């Protein structure tokens, strides 16, 4: 495992009605796949690979869920910002 994730993490609350569903997860995955390191979505300590829709769906995040997005390396801080913005905008729905 790499360095402690707290350094490179952001918090966000799911605001869209449908929650983190397949299509919104797909949008996150698309961004996460361009990252240099692994990007994680964490809910109540449970970690999901942000490049995997299925992994994220397994977290079953509904509207109002608080999640943490973290990256293994600091280079990906920009990716985290983009994902955070995406979540906060309700995935443009």
């Amino acid at each position, binding site marked *: 495992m790499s360095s402690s994730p707290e350094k490179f993490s952001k918090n966000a609350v799911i605001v869209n*009605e*449908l929650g983190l569903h*397949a299509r919104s997860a797909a949008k996150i995955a698309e961004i996460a796949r361009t990252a240099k390191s692994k990007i994680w979505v964490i809910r109540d300590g449970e970690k999901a690979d942000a*490049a995997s829709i299925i*992994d994220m769906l397994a977290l*079953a995040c509904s509207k109002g869920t608080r999640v943490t997005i973290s990256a293994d390396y600091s280079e990906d801080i920009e990716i985290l910002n983009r994902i955070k913005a995406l979540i906060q905008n309700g995935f443009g729905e």
Partner: protein
Amino acid sequence: MPEKESRQIILKGIGGSPGICIGKAYLLDKEGVDVIKKYFIPGEDLKSEKNRFKSAVKKAKDELHGIIEGIPDDLRETANILETHAVLLKDKMIYGKTIEIIEKEKINAEWALKKAVSDIRDMFKSMSDPYFRERAADIVHVSELITKNLVGADYSGVRDIDKRVILVADDLSPAETSQIQLERVMGFVTDRGGITSHTGIIARTLEIPAVMGVDLATSLIKNDDLMAIDGLTGEVVVNPTEETLVRFVKHKIAYEARRAVMTRGIHLPTRTLDDCYIQIMGNIELPEEVVSVKNYGGDGIGLYRTEFQYLSRAGFPTEYELFDKYRDVVEVMAPKPVTIRTLDINGDKALTYHSTAQEQNPALGLRGIRYCLKRTDVFKTQLRAILRAAAYGKVRILFPMISDCGEIREARRLLNEVADSLEKEGAGFRRDIEVGIMIEVPSAVIMADIMAKEVDFFSIGTNDLIQYSLAIDRGNRHVAHLYEPLHPAILRMIKTVSDAAKNSGIKVFMCGEMAGVPLYMPVLLGLGITELSMNPSSIPGVKYVITCLNHADTEAFAKTALGQSTAEDVKTLLHDTYEDIFSGSAEIPIPAFHGENNGEDN
């Protein structure tokens, strides 16, 4: 493990569509693709096997993008779904995992993919949120796309069945069922699904025997296995012995003979020997089921459950979506009546994004009219849709879970409000429809004489009424055996409701499962019920029994029944009094308690 030799295996499922058939199994794999073969790949070929998989994924992706480009803008929703699928193709849990399995287990790509997908599917299926559970279907779809490209020209699905077979499948999607050449199918056996599953509906409509919810059917049954199935009892026998075959053939002959008797005159009005007219209606959940109600000679829809459109989806249905479905049913049945029951669940919970709030005791919780009066926005949308559909035929509206007069007044007030606003908008609708309530809460029975003044009809929902009155949760196997429709307390309650209705000059119907059991007809008729609504396939049996009864006799019979001490006594009395009718058919099981409904039923 040694292969099971042709030893007889008896499986039990839910009778999905009555009838008996004996034939050879035709196994459809989960996705409708023929069973996938598993074989080992020698170490030196693993690389090319992985490449074969990668190129199949690439092809699937190109195909999807091709389709997406061709989608017009107004079908954006579909394009979105396919775009999600395109991203899923490369998901590590499908893509990465399959490659890993090929590598580790040295097996072919098709099998590796199947393995990866079944793990994911199990994970989704175990999730409590219906929306997420449904996502399993997306995964299956994506894997099917890849499989098609892997298997190439050999790919064969349900379209290619070329002999008369019994189809064995995990479950069949509407798309698959539409592709099957149904004249080649003698029967259905599915792992999953229930009475209201799509396969069940199709089977009943076409009168093909079907047994659903047979756990492990697809793993225990092999292609070309000889099997015998009974769609009434839910029995499935694989590799039947000589004796079993003889038993099934006997049943088949008896069933068909009885059926011929019952269906004779099925489209004639149902009259007792002394010429009392009893209306026999069908209960439906999906618009498609109207066909079976018509086929079985139903006099209308006595209960149209409307919950389905609210389930497993990502938002409340729109007025138009609801109206569209209701109109379908109303138009097809016209001029016969369609009784639309308003939402009888907790809509918030049915919807995916609210699913976290679990009620301790949902049967006693915020459901039915209670929920609707709390979420008047949701309720009004449905009322609007119902009133608009009413312009296309004869609609009656039914409010569930009424326990208090105030609820009736409030519901009627909202109905008026909605009608006023439709009028103002100049929309096509009908205002003067009959308004009724479900009698399913004991307080409504006690208050029936007062409530009768507020409505046009009562419909007794026996399933819940029995559960609430006898304090029995049918889902609880420790007490389920105490669930007893013939309990004298229940009969007395029906009597109270029926008398109250008669005194106020309103109609009294019954739409619970009790209404679909031929054995109960003497007592129900005797208690004054004049309209019965049931699962479509129960209609012929009930009609037949009614034509053998004398209404005046049943009234005398009911009086005696009301004086009994226990359900056992009532049963004995029934059998003794009507021995001639019911013993004649003892060889053949009395048509289904199409039971096992998940409690949210009337």
